[in-house]
């Protein structure tokens, strides 16, 4: 399964890109597992995902818990807690 990852704020800065397409193995079934798997791909990813408690996620542009299954997802976003307004 291929999915588009999008990153914002310091997650984006640490990874060094705002968007990438990834192809996780079948053993990766939730966003939390996807984060653990992505953390292995570069030192930037490792730094961005070092503290999973500080990460929030969206699946196809809707906010979801980090343990949400990724089956069928086209776009998954990872970012820090929001600070608008």
């Amino acid at each position, binding site marked *: 399964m291929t999915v588009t990852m999008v990153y914002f704020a310091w997650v984006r800065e640490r990874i060094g890109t705002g968007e990438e397409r990834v192809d996780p193995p079948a053993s990766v079934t939730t966003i939390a597992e996807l984060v653990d798997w992505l953390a292995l791909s570069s030192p930037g990813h490792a730094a961005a995902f070092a503290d999973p408690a500080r990460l929030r996620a969206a699946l196809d542009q809707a906010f979801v818990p980090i343990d949400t299954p990724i089956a069928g997802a086209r776009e998954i976003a990872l*970012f820090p807690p929001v600070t*608008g307004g």
Partner: protein
Amino acid sequence: MIRIIVQTAPIDLLAEITQAETAGERGAGAVATFTGLVRADDGVETLELEHYPGATEAALTKVATGAVERWGLSAVTIVHRVGPMHPGERIVFVAAASAHRAASLEACAYLIDRLKTDAPFWKRETRGTQASWVEARDADKDAAARWTS
């Protein structure tokens, strides 16, 4: 009428309020607004707002729709600026218009409380050569939670 705008241009307050006042078949009897500005009191020189295009508008529309359903408003406006801005400039403007004042005042507070926790925006502050991402506040989560009862 729901009006959701994410823009890099400065916020045109008068146009937005006038629009909220006159929207709907008969216009409003009460309009409450909230404007958030870049504060100058903590040394910030530039504030930069990043957002998640598409998801931001969807989240703001959901917040606005919730307010219209809950308070029967004649108009809701949310305008959020993105990109770099400076002390004194407007970051966000929300307005709630209704027949009577209680609905507009409560809805206005609801809109900005929910926006703070539900919409994908991130702030980066620059002081001199130091840039830092603003940390989310627990107080914002508490403020948003009071509307779920």
